[in-house]
């Protein structure tokens, strides 16, 4: 592989995979949904009205 191709491969991996890891860490550090009361039904019928 040429030097420029290796550089672009490393840059791509760093930005995209690094971005994914950073985004996942950010999400993991905010346990937002667990603190909220669960109002869902399972299995549910969506927003039906009886």
């Amino acid at each position: 592989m040429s030097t420029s191709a290796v550089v672009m491969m490393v840059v791509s991996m760093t930005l995209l995979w690094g971005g994914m890891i950073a985004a996942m860490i950010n999400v993991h550090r905010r346990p937002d949904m667990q603190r909220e009361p669960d109002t869902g039904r399972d299995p549910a019928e969506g927003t039906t009205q009886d």
Partner: protein
Amino acid sequence: MSAQPREQWSTRAGFLFAAIGSAVGLGNIWRFPAVAYEAGGGAFLLPYLIALLTAGIPLLILEYTIGRRYRASAPGSFRRMWRPAEALGWWQVAICFVIAAYYAVILAWAVRYVGFSVNLSWGDDPDGYFYNDFLQVGDEPGAITSFVPGVAWTLLAVWLLTLVVLWLGVRRGIEWCNRIFIPLLVVFFLILVVRALTLDGAFDGLDAFFSPDWNALTDSSVWIAAYGQIFFSLSVGFGVMITYASYLKRRADLSGSALAVSFSNCSFELLAGIGVFAVLGFMAAQAGVPVDEVVSEGIGLAFVAFPQIVSQMPAGAFFGVLFFVSLVAAGLTSLISIVQVIVSAVQEHTGISRTRAVLIIGGALTVTSTGLFATDGGLYLLDAADHFINSYGVTLAALAVLIVVSWYLRKLPQQQAEADSSSSVRLGVWWRLCLGVITPVVLGWMMVDSLTGEFSDNYSDYPTSFLLWGGWGVAVGALIVGVVMSLLPWRRDDPPSPEREPLPATAAGGAAGATGATPPGTGARPVDPPAGAAFGPDPGRPPRSSDDEGTTEGNH
């Protein structure tokens, strides 16, 4: 009549798996590598990242905020935002119907190829095997003269599995399906990529893939390709993310989730690009030709080039099975999300149960896709419908949504407040600038560019008569269906709008997004932001008056 709680994801991980499963589809595997290669190789990263940051992520966040705020299907959400906008939602539902009808057929092919891989059924002629023996493609586009049972029965099985998942509901069906298939997809693809990198010529393929052609950045078509790739691969523009976000809890982190989903999607694309070009390098080395002579994409890559590579690889059958199972996993999770858009909309519109909605929608889709695409003319119709519904359905609908939401209704400040009320990453003026200016301009540019090409040459050199009904007819038909559906009365009362629902106090301490928007059903234009604001006031600022949108917590 008493309103029942809406279905919800059991955990945020469940939502993320489902959203990633929707975004990661066949296009990630067979479209991105070729697009990147042809649009400057390594240099494509620059427009690709800019497109991700200025269009992909902002659009994804917008759809999340619409879904979470209005807590309804795409038509229901747009109806609650502004009644005439309901047509946009039904247009997206009609687009989903078309896409689901042919997308399932490709999945059926992939399922059959899992079996074909075991004994390398295509022999030494994968091209002839796929087009002649398996699909029995006819000579004339638009002519349907015979049924192809080998595709039809697999297609029925694909639909059965999809409908069972949807019938099980958001948690037990969609969420669990994605929890199984997405990790499976990643593991299988990692094995494939590692194996591909050990093949002769693999690094020549990677060299071709990553070598930058910086001159390409001065070509406008490269930028259009980058925005198009980001746009189509993130599942934005046809109501999927609105529908999925409508099952989120009130405090869900919208912008953080959007970043996680979009970067996961792009990360998988990069992984697919590495895997695909490694095997293309191997293929070129075997044939003794340069890599650019073996580059292919789409159906040709998956069902012709890859089988050829599998035949040449040591333990090829095993890797063929892995590849086609990966295709099935990626496609199935996307198909489920597309059909859920339709099921959710019909269920809300008619008030029928999920079981009945799944049976009715599933029945219609099964008949349509089997009757049209499991035939000798199916491939031509699939190709034309795919091109036109994406170019003049998904793109145009997204453009219309942006114009209505950001330019006419001026809802971006309100939606920004909705996102900021519970998100880890607060949005700034850049978000409104991207959605109010950059993305509409780019989508409009894509539309003009696409139309120019359409009128200079017939798509794929198909006859005009065929394109009129198989391409333009499909795209225009979806729009007409959308408008007609929006005129039909809803069979049940409209559920409470978020304008009247109390919102919880927010962890971020920001505005809860309750605004003085128009009550649903009135059709009147909602309150405009103060004059002089580019796209309304910054929701992070304190309210100046009772008319400021998105600044009053707990409005009713």
